[in-house]
């Protein structure tokens, strides 16, 4: 039992844990230390690594840093009394003593022996002038954020870096540094705190290497860069504590893999270092806690888990709309007047949506009805950073009544004054929703308030079960990843950029990282081979090797360019290819369609290439708050004209990055199966389900309902797996292949989070009735064999997956040195590499990495595979005369969703014929 029983800490013990000065500080603020904060101190004293699970507002950050602050205060539990610092005077008095001479002295003394020597008795309080500090305080957050000036700036210590803090967001690292200043200054601690991000000037980076601060706050990418240098051992050997913030968010991606490998390095360099993970509530804390300690190989070891209790359960309701509930769509436009009312009635409201384009549309709509002139702002990931910062600052200053935002605000600093969270559309997962709701009211012991606004009838079901899940505190975070090979390749190159390594040693070290604990030696060796010469069966690149072994067998980089390229390309976040959007005059008008597009035009912003690829000219969509008409794509420029339509034809709902969680899907199926529970649903939804029961059938928990019916000259097959859009999309691809073989002549399919609809020329009902089509065979899990392989050969999604692996692994560079830029004219198509590699070395390590990603990423193969086994032999077929109530939402999406067909001759031939028809009629 490693979960700490909080009540086992007796009062006298806690008194020992927290030095007097700290207790006084808490008291001066009218606070007392929370139990989990003390629990982490106890863990630190026992030299244990720990994972703190706590909701937002529980003082998590302070809990994570308290052990550090106590240790660095000089009177902590690990230092002896002789190092106690003088305690005279209050913080403000003492700070006032910082003289100009001292500060100047520090500046000029940098680099001298004296400065580097241990300070015999460092003056405890240095730093800013009191009035400077005060003005910073008084103006609060109204003003631009003050530059960080650490209170302990003048402190010189020989002990080196003490604590490393890693955050998933650069901005968060900067905010935390600023927030730490308050206790440090008020308690009067001689601690130097610095951040290191992509924005940190080179001069400060160099200084940080030579004279590390006590606490360094940074990101996983910056840690990788620091580790990939010769002086990493010097910099990190003194490390005592590692604080990992928002760990639940970090570990779900390749950034988590990269971080885990960095931790493995740190455990080698600084075996004495202990980690503290800070996380929102997750499904399996013990699993997450493995991340924080070196895995010994074979068995699994977890850090201790501390769970903060006492948070008030949130108050969550579903908007009971007065309007008619739409059958499909994701905009929730019907409810906007009600959403507006909610914003008006509350002090500050966060309105979460699932995609950037939804945010754009919603913001635009709210603005139109904003007769009261409420201060409402927009925040999403593709807005300019300065713009986002401005919104965050206005928010923190309490100047905003509402912010329409995406997951860009799922994480980040706490703003105390949010009193309502509105979630528009599908909640997707219960943990995700709980984290969002936690953004409201960051006072720990007060209940957060949230309103869910379903955008269609299926989403009502999802919202209902999400509310139930929250009431039970049921979590559905994904299990810990297994480490990706492309990330390992990047790490291996990084290691070679630092001190040369031996394969055996590095393999051992890598396996201490939880995601790589079961990494096979052959995979590791293949990765090293890949980094060296590309890992090809055809050994022709020996002379071009990027890393080589010396006589002792140590791998080192062969030339400085390799090192330079590594530094430029570190990281695992692969941005979508973005295209520039320019506003031109429409060519649909006067000049006729054969005229060349007017070039130039005002730049509106940037948009994802994949989105544009789904459009055909004359489609309209919302961009930058207005409806535009797609004209043409030339090179990396998208030409659009102003459209007069009020509504965009393409709703640009990109499917959202997160599919409906398996857990919520299961609960939705259970809800459907239990008609007594329908009474808790809005009347419109209740009626809808009752109608479905009357005309067709409501799917039972374990079965797959398949409906077939004719409609408008086509024949439809609709099934309801509830496995999320990505898995359904893959299923759609594979089913259409099979239906083609069965001569059912499918024409297309459309997938949403709950259902998949396939249509075609062949009469599917007739075929099933007469035994010409066997549904059990159609849905047999063996479709994941040859059919899948054949499809993967040409799948655009698989090619995108491969591209990401090629970039992360370092095969293809994203950023170039100036010298390289000059010969960069040939930008490389990774699709071509994929085709060639797949044909000539199908087991290449990069293809293996891409297949690993396909299991959970864009193709969601694992989920599809689980579903196929679940429903095997449990298919119920309904042969209908017409579309069923449950099928309507899926069918309504036809034409609004892009069909991911195959790039086949049929599509091209059809397009050519279409043009001929147009020309001849």
């Amino acid at each position, binding site marked *: 039992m490693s979960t700490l029983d909080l009540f086992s800490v007796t009062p006298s013990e806690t008194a020992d844990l927290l030095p007097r000065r700290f207790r006084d500080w808490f008291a001066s603020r009218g606070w007392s230390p929370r139990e989990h904060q003390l629990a982490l101190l106890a863990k630190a004293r026992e030299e244990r690594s720990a994972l703190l699970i706590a909701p937002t507002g529980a003082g998590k950050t302070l809990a994570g840093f308290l052990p550090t602050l106590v240790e660095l205060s000089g009177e902590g539990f690990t230092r002896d009394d002789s190092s106690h610092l003088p305690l005279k005077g209050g913080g403000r008095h003492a700070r006032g003593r910082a003289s100009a001479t001292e500060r100047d002295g520090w500046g000029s003394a940098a680099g001298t022996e004296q400065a580097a020597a241990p300070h015999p008795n460092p003056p405890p309080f240095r730093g800013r002038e009191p009035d400077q500090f005060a003005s910073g305080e008084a103006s609060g957050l109204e003003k631009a954020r003050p530059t960080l000036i650490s209170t302990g700036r003048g402190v010189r210590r020989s002990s080196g870096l003490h604590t490393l803090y890693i955050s998933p967001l650069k901005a968060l690292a900067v905010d935390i540094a600023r927030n730490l200043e308050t206790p440090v200054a008020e308690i009067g601690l001689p601690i130097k705190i610095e951040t290191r991000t992509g924005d940190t000037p080179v001069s400060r980076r160099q200084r940080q290497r030579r004279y590390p601060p006590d606490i360094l706050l940074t990101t996983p990418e910056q840690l990788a860069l620091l580790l990939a240098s010769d002086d990493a051992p010097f910099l990190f050997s003194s490390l005592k504590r590692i604080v990992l913030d928002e760990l639940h968010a970090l570990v779900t991606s390749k950034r988590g893999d990269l971080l885990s490998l960095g931790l493995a390095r740190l455990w080698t360099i600084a075996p004495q270092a202990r980690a503290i993970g800070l996380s929102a509530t997750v499904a399996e804390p013990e699993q997450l806690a493995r991340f924080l300690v070196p895995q010994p190989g074979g068995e699994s070891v977890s850090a201790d888990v501390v769970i903060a209790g006492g948070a008030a359960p949130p108050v969550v309701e579903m908007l009971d709309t007065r309007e008619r509930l739409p059958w499909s769509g994701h905009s929730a436009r019907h409810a906007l007047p009600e959403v507006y009312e909610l914003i008006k009635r509350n002090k500050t409201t966060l309105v979460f949506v699932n995609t950037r384009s939804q945010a754009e549309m919603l913001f635009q709509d709210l603005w139109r009805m904003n007769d009261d002139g409420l201060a409402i702002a927009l925040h999403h990931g593709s807005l300019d950073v300065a713009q986002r910062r401005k919104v965050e600052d206005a928010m923190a200053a309490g100047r905003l009544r509402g912010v329409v935002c995406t997951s860009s605000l799922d994480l980040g600093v706490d703003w105390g004054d949010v009193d309502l969270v509105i979630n528009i559309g599908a909640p997707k997962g219960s943990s995700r929703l709980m984290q969002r709701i936690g953004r409201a009211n960051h006072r720990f012991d007060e209940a957060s308030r949230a309103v869910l606004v379903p955008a269609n009838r299926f989403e009502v079901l999802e919202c209902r079960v999400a509310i139930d899940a929250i009431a039970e505190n049921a979590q559905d975070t994904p299990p810990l990843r297994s480490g990706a090979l492309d990330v390992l390749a990047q790490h291996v190159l990084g290691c070679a950029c630092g001190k040369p390594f031996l394969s055996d040693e590095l393999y051992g070290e890598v396996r201490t990282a939880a995601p790589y604990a079961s990494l096979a030696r052959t995979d590791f060796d293949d990765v090293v081979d890949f980094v060296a*010469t*590309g890992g*090809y069966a*055809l050994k*022709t*690149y020996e002379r*071009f090797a*990027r890393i080589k072994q010396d006589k002792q067998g140590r791998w080192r980089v062969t030339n400085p*360019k*390799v090192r330079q*390229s590594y530094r430029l390309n570190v990281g695992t976040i692969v941005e979508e290819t973005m295209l520039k959007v320019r506003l031109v005059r429409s060519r649909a008008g006067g000049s006729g*369609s*054969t005229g*060349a*597009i007017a070039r130039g035009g005002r730049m509106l912003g940037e948009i994802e290439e994949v989105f544009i*690829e*789904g*459009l*055909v*000219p004359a489609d309209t969509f919302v961009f930058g708050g207005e409806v535009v008409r797609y004209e*043409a*794509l*030339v*090179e990396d420029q998208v030409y659009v004209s102003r459209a007069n339509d009020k509504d965009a034809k393409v709703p640009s709902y990109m499917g959202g990055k997160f599919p409906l969680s398996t857990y919520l899907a299961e609960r939705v199926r259970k809800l459907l199966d239990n008609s007594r529970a329908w009474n808790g649903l809005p009347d419109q939804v209740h009626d809808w389900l009752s109608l479905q029961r009357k005309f067709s059938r409501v799917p039972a928990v374990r079965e797959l309902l398949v409906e077939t019916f004719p409609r408008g000259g086509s024949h439809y097959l609709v099934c309801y797996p509830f496995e999320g859009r990505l898995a359904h999309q893959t299923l759609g691809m594979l089913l259409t292949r099979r239906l083609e073989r069965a001569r059912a002549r499918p024409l*297309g399919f459309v997938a949403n989070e709950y259902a998949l609809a396939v249509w075609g020329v062949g009469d599917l009902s007739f075929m099933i009735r007469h035994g010409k089509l066997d549904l059990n065979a159609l849905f047999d899990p063996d479709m994941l064999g040859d059919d899948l392989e054949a499809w993967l050969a040409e799948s655009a999604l698989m090619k995108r997956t491969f591209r990401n692996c090629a970039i992360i692994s370092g*095969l*293809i*560079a994203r950023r170039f040195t100036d010298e390289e830029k000059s*010969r960069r004219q*040939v*930008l*490389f*198509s990774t699709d*071509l*590499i994929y*085709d*060639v*590699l797949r*044909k*000539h*070395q199908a087991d*290449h390590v990069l293809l293996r990495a891409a297949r690993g990603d396909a299991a959970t990423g864009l193709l969601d193969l694992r989920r599809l595979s689980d579903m196929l086994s679940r429903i095997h032999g449990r298919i119920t077929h309904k042969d209908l005369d017409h579309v069923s109530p449950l099928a309507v939402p899926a069918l309504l999406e036809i034409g609004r969703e*892009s*069909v*991911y*067909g195959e*790039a*086949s*001759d049929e*599509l*091209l*031939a*059809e*397009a*050519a014929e279409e*043009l001929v028809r147009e020309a001849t009629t």
Partner: protein
Amino acid sequence: MADVGFVADFSGALFWEEQSLLVVSDLHLEKGSSFAAHGVLLPPYDTVATLSRLAAVIARHDPRQVIALGDSFHDRDAHARLSEPDREALAALQVRRNWIWISGNHDPALPTNLGGVVATEVAIGPIVFRHEPTGAAGEIAGHLHPKARVPTRGRSIERRCFASDGERAVMPAFGAYTGGLSIRDAAFARIFGSPGFMAHVLGDNRVHAFVASRCY
């Protein structure tokens, strides 16, 4: 074109039946190893992939003459890096065939030991074959790597293509690692004038014709 009938093969090759002549452009052999020399370790299989596609189209048409329309090798030294098996495969294709290497900007100085003859351009009847297009009537060229994006039901498809207005043509690149330039680029406007020319887009098993103005 210019009263001569050509077959545009879906592989990206052009076949002139009366002359039993097959034309391929921009093979860019050894592009992979060329990048590798600069630290980008692309799979070293592009030459074998390109040559096997070339072998397939040669087997389909069994031409007496073959013209490689320039940029057959990705850089000046690329021919020297051909592996022995690739060299043999190439030699096998040349047996009993007139083989003409037209030099391009990537391979301006081809050696004579590659089999076949080296030329800067070739005229056969009304048709002139050269690497870089000048826009002259009766010209068949390469160099630009034309590609076209075609709107289809639900999404658009981007493929390599032949570009031609019946007077002149630009061939698609044949090499496994060769990217493309959109036919809506100004470079094509300089050759063809208005975008009223045709894009013959390479499908999986056939070629599809579109008016260039309808592509993007």
